[in-house]
Every structure is written in structure tokens, then in C-alpha cells.
């Protein structure tokens, strides 16, 4: 004899087979929601772990102190300061690399080779360590090596302080200090134009004339708090050795950029999948509820035969799980695979010495539990509604909500509409809940489409703003020192016939209340044409203050006019108390600008420049090596197009990948919403269509009628969807905004058109999927049953 459980299981299985279409759509939506969360969390947590591991294993120092000269023997005596756990010294120098047939300037930073177990150590990724007495053997940063396809065993020519060397690359290395490898001149890393070298200390002692001394301290504190307390004493003792500032880890370029990125990613990993999963949960709940309502009469029949509610509930839950578990499994597999892929892309860009990729079991368990719980809530809610009815009531088909005369019918406009349009409108109003839910689903789908595609346009906008409108020069020439304005003519004579504008760019600290920020002070000339700062005018106490980037002002809570203290960050710091009188809308970088006349008065100095903006005629390139050899004070040349390309590359590799996944996910969710709603809508109107077919309506007329409903809902949903998409983006961008990087929430018309077009394509695609059901409509059974 067949067991009862087997029979019920068979029933559930057959019902599931009948529901394969909606189950597949539900599963896809769930898979996508889960995958987005698992992908983001897995990637983020692996990046955080890799960062921690690299910092720990390579003894990344808590702070860096640039000095003029400190004897090695003196360093030992600094160890006893309370709060300092370890202090080490090293030599650091800048220089250039000469590669055959390369005209662009390749800057280099040279550090003395770290000893075994010392701070800011290295991990060798290729080759071997230099031999103890081989002065020409070096370790090269693997980012630079890979960009130029260099390997251990290669020989490269470099210049340090005007002296040329031929170095033999014994190995390639990675350091916690250069996970994000960038020089100071440009904010976007370019592995081809910036290199890091770890070389024998004796070479640097010789080039910098620092025998038995060094020019940089690496400090590790017993704790962050203790180290903070130790600084006054350290500062006091280091004054004699040229102390000007200490650079805590938070202000070191690699850590700063990596942390900014991780903070952004953290916000993205919460907001974006959060929005995706919220939409999925909403759909799962609603759809499971509506799917269950199709089982109403079957459940009532079983109740009539004396089956306990709990058994029926288990059956319904079983059916829900059968619909959802494939989605959960697919979501986990997809999410883990994508997080691995994403992580692989990130580690190409952020060069961790130690990598610890693991999928995040917590987020997997939590998200699967969340999805299933939500779907089951929908199921149980539906069951509750069914169980509230008497068995007799539930045995007969649910009485449809009847149309009664409403305010809609009193509108003269309604009578002018075609009968089919009137039918559609009344249908939508007759089932306000169902229509509302469908509409909401479509609104969310539209919002996701706007949301997912936005960055592409925003970044284009940002590039346009930064590289076409704000910066109009083709090259920036950076000098090692301030030059008197009188020397401008002689520098210009080397450049050609383009436009040249001198400018002064100084690293400064801005102090507002207790908050301190390191910024770049740009001294502007009144007739500057190559640089445009987008100023937001405000009512100022006087017009001779500074203009601060809005992102920084917002972070520090500065509302102009605001009194600040500016300190230059050089060997002889100058402190000036002045006013922030205006804000600027720059999207990248942390800058504060001042008019040259105001600067001269404030700092009581004479006119000078250390940067030359140059616009070459016909976008010709400058020969960097030739200029560097002819202008001794020239430190480097950056080419705007090159920077722009580096930026675009970064975005394509970084944000672009995330965005592509999100576009795919948004499209899938939109399709899931459309398909499920179309099916439900069709089931609800099947009887009416059967009747119309019996009365002689053609298939094409029914198709039009069905899609009139759906297109009405879609057209109602599009505009709120676009609006919601923008709101979601504003929330996301506010969350991920940093001081150095801001993505403007400017949604181009193309974005809106694209989102609307995608939604309409989804409608058409769904129409094609649903069409066979209209074709196969059976009017015989339906017409013999009571409505």
C-alpha cells in the first residue's frame, strides 16, 4: 500500500512540474539577489583579510618620518620613548628610470633594502634576494616589472641625483607600502611610469651623501593611542635632524587610496546588494503568496477529507522550497564564482603580498536564510488566508472582486476611450492591490536598471569635467623647487609654441577646529585659461580668502566663511590663519585654491612657480627625457591624456566589472518581475479571454487586450521607477563619497532612455513567452463553471 506521505509528495512534485515557468523565474530572481550579496561580501572580506595579512606579515610601520639626516647610532636611543615599540631607519631617494626607446619620464623611488624581519619588509615574488656585497643587485617592484615585461636577471639604467647606475634585477618584490602603487604626482596609478626599487644602502648613502646615516624613520607604536602620545617627545628629539612632519599610516598614499577604495566597496557591498536583495525579497514574498492562492481549492479539498493543517502547511512549504532551492543553489554557486572573479580583478590592481581569498560562509548562510524565510513568510501568509476560510467556502473558486461604479466611471474622458482600454483601466482599478504590487515590481525593476547603468555615464561626466573642462593643459611640468617668476621665459623657450601658464602648488595642512586635513594648495593666477575651478559663490566676509573643495568642506563641516589655519608642509613650515570664503565643485582630488595676490600677501612672499601648465599645439607630445636633461630643476612631466587613460583603465577594471555584473543582475530581475507579473495577470484574466475568444475575438485582439493592461502598468511605473533609481543612486553616492573622489549624481537622458527601453524590451520578450498561452487558451472548461 502506498504511504500517505509518498502520495502527498507525488502531488507536490506534480504541482511543481506544472509551475516550472514561474519557479524558474523566481529561482532566477533569488539566484541573482543572493549572488550579488555573496559576490560583494566574499570579495570585500577577502580584500580586508589580504590587507591585514600583508600588513602583519611584512611589518608595515605605523608611521613614516622624513628627515634630512639622522645617524644610524642615534636611532637606537629613540626606542626607549614610551609608546614606541620599534623604530628603524632607512634611506629613500627619488630618481628616474631610462628604458630603451621610451621618451616619457619614468619616475622611481629608491629605498634601502630592508633587513630580515625589519619594518616595511618585502615579499619576493620572483628571483632571489641581492647578494650581500653585490651593490648593483636590486629588488624591483613587480607592478612596474610586469607593466614592462621585466624579469629577474634584467639590467636597467637609472639616475639617482644626477648619477647614472646600471642595476641588475635579482628579484621582484611586493611591499605593504605599495599595495596601491602610485607616485605623488598623479593620483591614478600608472605602473608604467612609476617604479619602486629596493637597493643596497651604500648606493643611497653615496648619492645622498649620508654615510652611516639615513633620511627616513619607520615607527611602530605599542598601540595607536600610545604612539599618538609619543609624538611630542619624538618631535622634540628629531627637531635637530630636520623633522618637519610625520606621516601616519592613514596619510600614506597606498593605505589612503586602498582604504578609500575599501570604504567605497564596503558601502557598495551593503547598498547595492541590499537594494537588489530587497527587491528580490519583495518579489519572492508577493509571488509565493500569489502562487499559493492557486492551490486554494486543492488545499480545501484535502481539508475536507480530514487532513490536518500542519500536514498541508508542510506540503505548501515543500512546494515553495522546491521552487526556491534551485535558485538558492544557483545563487550560491554564481555568487562564489563571481566573488572569486572580482577578487582576482582587484588583486591585479591592489598588489597584496599575501592573498587570502575565501568565500564568506556567514553571508551565504544569512542571505539564503533570509531569502527562504521571506518566501516562506509569503507562503505561510497565503496559507493563513486560506485557513481562515471555512472548508466549504474554500472549496468553491474565489469570488472575484466585482466591478462597481466608481468615480472613474463618472469621468467623461473614460467614455471617449475604446472599450478595450476601458476594460483594462477598470481591471486595474478593480484589483488595486494586485495592480499596485505589479506596478511596484515594475517601478523597482526600472529603478534597478537606472541604478545599474548610472556609473558609466557618471564617470564619463567626471572625466569630461576633470580632463576637458577643469584641466585644459596637455602637460603639467613639475619642478623640484620654487622658481622665481622671472625664470618662466627661459623655461618656455624649451617648450615650443603652445600656451604656458605658471602656477604654484604647495602641500599644506588645513586645520579647522581640531580637525586636520592634508591638502594641495593651488595658487591661481588671475588670467589663467588652462585651469578652471568651478566655484560655488557664497556670501563671504571678505573676498580674499581660500576656495576649498566642497567634498572636504562637507567632511569637516566647514561652512564659509570659516576661519582655518594653513601650514605649509615643507622644511620650513609657515602657519597662516585665514578664511575659507568659497567652495569649489571639483570631483577629484583634495584641493584648496587661492588667488596669487592673496597668496603673496598672506604668506608674505615673492612671486614664484613650481608647476607649469602647458598646452601644446596639435596635441604634440613633449620629449620628457630631453626636457629633463635641459632643465635641471624639472622633476617630472605628466601628460593629461595619459593620466586620463590611466583613470579610464582603472575605472574599466574596477568599477566597470562591478557595474557589468549589476547591469546583468538588474536585467534578470526586471525580466523576472515582468514574467511573473505577466503570468499572474494572465491567470487572473484567463476566464475573460476565454469568453472573448468564444465570442469571436481573434488571437491578435486578445494579445492587444492583454498587453494593454501590462503596458498601462509599465507606463505608470516608468517615471516613478526612473525617479526612484535616481534617489537610490543619490543615497549610494552619498555613502561612498570620499574626500578625494566624488561621483556626481548626474543621470544623462541616455540612461533614462536605456532603462525605459530595456523595460519595454523586457515587456516584448515576456509577450513572446506568454503568447503561446494566449494561443492555447481553453474556453470549454472555463465557460461551464460559475464565475
Amino acid at each position, binding site marked *: 500500500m502506498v504511504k500517505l506521505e509518498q502520495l502527498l509528495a507525488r502531488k507536490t512534485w506534480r504541482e511543481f512540474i506544472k509551475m516550472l515557468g514561474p519557479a524558474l523565474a523566481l529561482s532566477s530572481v533569488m539566484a541573482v539577489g543572493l549572488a550579488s550579496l555573496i559576490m560583494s561580501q566574499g570579495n570585500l572580506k577577502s580584500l580586508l583579510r589580504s590587507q591585514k595579512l600583508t600588513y602583519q606579515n611584512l611589518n608595515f610601520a605605523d608611521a613614516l618620518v622624513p628627515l634630512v639626516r639622522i645617524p644610524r647610532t642615534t636611532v637606537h636611543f629613540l626606542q626607549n620613548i614610551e609608546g614606541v615599540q620599534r623604530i628603524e631607519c632607512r634611506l629613500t631617494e627619488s630618481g628616474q628610470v631610462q628604458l630603451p626607446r621610451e621618451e616619457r619620464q619614468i619616475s622611481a623611488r629608491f629605498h634601502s633594502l630592508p633587513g630580515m624581519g625589519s619594518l616595511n619588509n618585502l615579499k619576493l615574488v620572483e628571483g632571489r634576494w641581492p647578494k650581500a656585497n653585490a651593490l648593483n643587485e636590486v629588488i624591483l617592484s613587480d607592478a612596474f616589472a610586469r607593466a614592462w615585461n621585466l624579469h629577474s636577471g634584467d639590467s636597467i639604467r637609472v639616475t639617482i641625483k644626477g648619477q647614472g647606475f646600471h642595476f641588475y634585477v635579482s628579484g621582484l618584490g611586493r611591499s605593504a607600502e605599495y599595495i596601491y602603487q602610485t607616485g605623488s604626482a598623479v593620483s591614478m596609478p600608472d605602473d608604467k611610469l612609476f617604479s619602486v626599487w629596493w637597493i643596497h644602502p651604500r648606493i643611497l648613502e653615496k648619492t645622498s651623501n649620508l654615510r652611516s646615516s639615513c633620511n627616513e624613520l619607520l615607527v611602530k607604536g605599542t598601540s595607536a593611542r600610545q604612539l599618538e602620545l609619543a609624538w611630542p617627545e619624538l618631535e622634540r628629539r628629531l627637531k635637530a635632524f630636520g623633522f618637519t612632519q610625520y606621516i601616519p599610516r592613514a596619510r600614506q598614499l597606498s593605505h589612503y587610496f586602498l582604504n578609500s577604495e575599501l570604504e567605497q566597496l564596503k558601502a557598495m557591498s551593503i547598498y547595492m546588494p541590499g537594494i537588489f536583495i530587497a527587491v528580490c525579497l519583495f518579489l519572492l514574498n508577493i509571488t509565493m503568496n500569489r502562487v499559493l492562492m492557486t492551490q486554494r481549492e486543492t488545499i480545501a479539498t484535502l481539508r475536507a477529507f480530514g487532513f490536518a493543517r500542519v500536514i498541508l502547511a508542510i506540503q505548501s512549504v515543500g512546494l515553495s522550497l522546491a521552487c526556491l532551492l534551485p535558485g538558492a543553489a544557483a545563487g550560491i554557486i554564481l555568487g562564489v564564482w563571481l566573488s572569486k572573479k572580482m577578487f582576482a580583478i582587484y588583486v591585479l590592481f591592489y598588489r597584496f603580498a599575501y592573498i587570502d581569498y575565501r568565500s564568506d560562509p556567514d553571508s551565504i548562510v544569512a542571505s539564503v536564510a533570509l531569502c527562504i524565510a521571506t518566501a516562506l513568510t509569503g507562503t505561510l501568509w497565503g496559507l493563513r488566508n486560506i485557513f481562515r476560510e471555512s472548508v466549504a467556502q474554500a472549496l468553491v473558486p474565489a469570488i472575484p472582486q*466585482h466591478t462597481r*461604479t466608481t468615480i472613474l466611471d463618472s469621468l467623461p474622458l473614460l467614455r471617449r476611450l475604446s*472599450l478595450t482600454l476601458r476594460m483594462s483601466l477598470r481591471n486595474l482599478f478593480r484589483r488595486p492591490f494586485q495592480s499596485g504590487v505589479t506596478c511596484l515590481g515594475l517601478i523597482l525593476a526600472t529603478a534597478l536598471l537606472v541604478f545599474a547603468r548610472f556609473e558609466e555615464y557618471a564617470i564619463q561626466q567626471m572625466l569630461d569635467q576633470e580632463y576637458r573642462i577643469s584641466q585644459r593643459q596637455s602637460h603639467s611640468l613639475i619642478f623640484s623647487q620654487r622658481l622665481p617668476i622671472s625664470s618662466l621665459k627661459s623655461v618656455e623657450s624649451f617648450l615650443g609654441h603652445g600656451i604656458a601658464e605658471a602656477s604654484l602648488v604647495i602641500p599644506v595642512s588645513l586645520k579647522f577646529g581640531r580637525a586636520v586635513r592634508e591638502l594641495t594648495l593651488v595658487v591661481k593666477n588671475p588670467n589663467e585659461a588652462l585651469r578652471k575651478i568651478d566655484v560655488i559663490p557664497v556670501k563671504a566676509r571678505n573676498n580674499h580668502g581660500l576656495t576649498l573643495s566642497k567634498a572636504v568642506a562637507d567632511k569637516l563641516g566647514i561652512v564659509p566663511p570659516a576661519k582655518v589655519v594653513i601650514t605649509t608642509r615643507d622644511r620650513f613650515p609657515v602657519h597662516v590663519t585665514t578664511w575659507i570664503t568659497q567652495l569649489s565643485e571639483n570631483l577629484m582630488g583634495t584641493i584648496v585654491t587661492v588667488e596669487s595676490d592673496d597668496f603673496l600677501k598672506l604668506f608674505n612672499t615673492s612671486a614664484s612657480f613650481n608647476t607649469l601648465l602647458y598646452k601644446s599645439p596639435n596635441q604634440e607630445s613633449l620629449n620628457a627625457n630631453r626636457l629633463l636633461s635641459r632643465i635641471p630643476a624639472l622633476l617630472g612631466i605628466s601628460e593629461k591624456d595619459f593620466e586620463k587613460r590611466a583613470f579610464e583603465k582603472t575605472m574599466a577594471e574596477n568599477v566597470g566589472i562591478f557595474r557589468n555584473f549589476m547591469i546583468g543582475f538588474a536585467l534578470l530581475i526586471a525580466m523576472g518581475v515582468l514574467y511573473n507579473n505577466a503570468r499572474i495577470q494572465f491567470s487572473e484574466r484567463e476566464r475573460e479571454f476565454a469568453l472573448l475568444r468564444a465570442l469571436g*475575438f481573434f488571437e491578435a485582439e486578445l494579445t492587444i487586450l492583454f498587453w494593454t493592461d501590462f503596458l498601462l502598468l509599465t507606463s505608470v511605473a516608468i517615471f516613478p521607477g526612473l525617479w526612484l533609481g535616481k534617489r537610490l543612486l543619490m543615497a549610494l553616492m552619498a555613502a561612498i563619497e570620499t574626500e578625494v573622489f566624488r561621483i556626481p549624481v548626474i543621470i544623462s537622458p541616455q540612461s533614462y532612455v536605456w532603462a525605459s527601453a530595456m523595460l519595454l524590451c523586457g515587456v516584448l520578450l515576456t509577450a513572446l513567452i506568454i503568447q503561446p498561452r494566449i494561443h492555447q487558451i481553453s474556453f470549454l472548461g472555463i465557460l*461551464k463553471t460559475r464565475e
Partner: protein
Amino acid sequence: MTEVLLEAKGLGKRYAFGETFVDALANVDFSLQTGELVVVLGPSGSGKSTFLNILGTLDRPTVGTLNYKNELMTEKTDEELCAFRREKVGLVFQFYNLIPSLTALENVQLIESHGESAMSSEDALRRLNLWERRNHFPSELSGGEQQRVAIARAIVKKPALLLCDEPTGALDVSTGVVVLQAIEEVHHDFGVSVMLITHNVMIAGIADRVIHMSGGKITSIEKNLKHMLARDLQW
């Protein structure tokens, strides 16, 4: 002079359930004259609804042929049959099957344009004494009123053939009589051929001919010699 409107020869309808078959209709020969009112009687499961569905081209026979004015209907495509129903056939169902989102008037207007020589929706509703109720939705009408709207909807295009499937099945006697009177009037005034299926023997009184069915077959066809008016019916 009357002519044959519909002619069925050897009609059969077989349903397959796995390896077993059920013959819902078997070897039925029948013809319907223009302007004739035929009542089909039979118990539940006798095949009368299947028969009506095939005559109304709502279903296809498994075997046999169906001709409408010498036109072979069984060879036509679904869309051609749909066009045939649209132009020639009026349908009245047991459960009215009005469109719930359209008012009484709009339900009739929906079909108004289908016929070749249509009357106006207003005429159709007035004829059935429903003009005053024209702006009411089906849910705001009584069962009898709904069925009369269904008849108005069926006749508005002046169909050549009116097929009624248990039109009084869901109604009480007095309402049923009103509905039958409406069908009778339409039949008389427009010369529409009517085929009405019912299990109520009393209704056979209004027919020109009465067909008895059982087990998917026509067991007898008899002329109604005691013709009655609908208003005189009682059950």
C-alpha cells in the same frame, strides 16, 4: 422556404485518458434548418454540451463533418472558425459570462460591430427591457438581468445561429421564463435559428423539434406537436 443551415454527419468526439478512451459523442447525424428552434434534452454526461460546442465551433470533432450552408467547417483553421463565430454565431451560457469590467451597455457594444447587419446596442437592450440598467456592471444586476444582457449581447449582431447552453440552469422559474421569452422573441422577430440545450423537459415545449441524447448519441429526434409559448411554461 427553409434551407439547411447546419449539417453534421457522423460527428464523434473521443477523449483519451492515458490508454483509455471516452467517446463523449459518437456517430451523430443532424441538420438544423434556418429559422428553426431546437431543444436538446438529456441527462448530465449525455454529450449535449459537447454537441453544442462542436456546432458552435468552440470545439472540433474527432471524426465526422460539419457544414454551414454547404461550407465545410471541420476543415477550417482556428482563426477562420473564430471569424465564423464572430459573424454568425450568438452564444448564451449557463453562467452568463459577462465581462465584469464592462457595464451592461458596454458588454453589448463590445459585440455590436461583429455582425453584418447589426442592430444598435440600445435596440438590443430595449428589446430585453434593460435600457434603464445599461450603466450597471454585471455584479450590480440580478441573475435574470445578467442572462438577458447575455442574450442582448448574443443578438445584437443578428446572428444566423443562436446557441444557448442551459440558459435557465442557474435561474429560478419566473426568471427562467423571462429569459426564455426573450429567446423566443428573438427567434420569432429575426428568424434566428436557435439551438437550446437543457435537462429541463418542460422547456422542450417551446421547441420546433426536440432531440434526446444519451451516452453521446442522439436517441431520438421528434417534432414538437404541442408547441407552447414560453410564458405558459411551468416547472
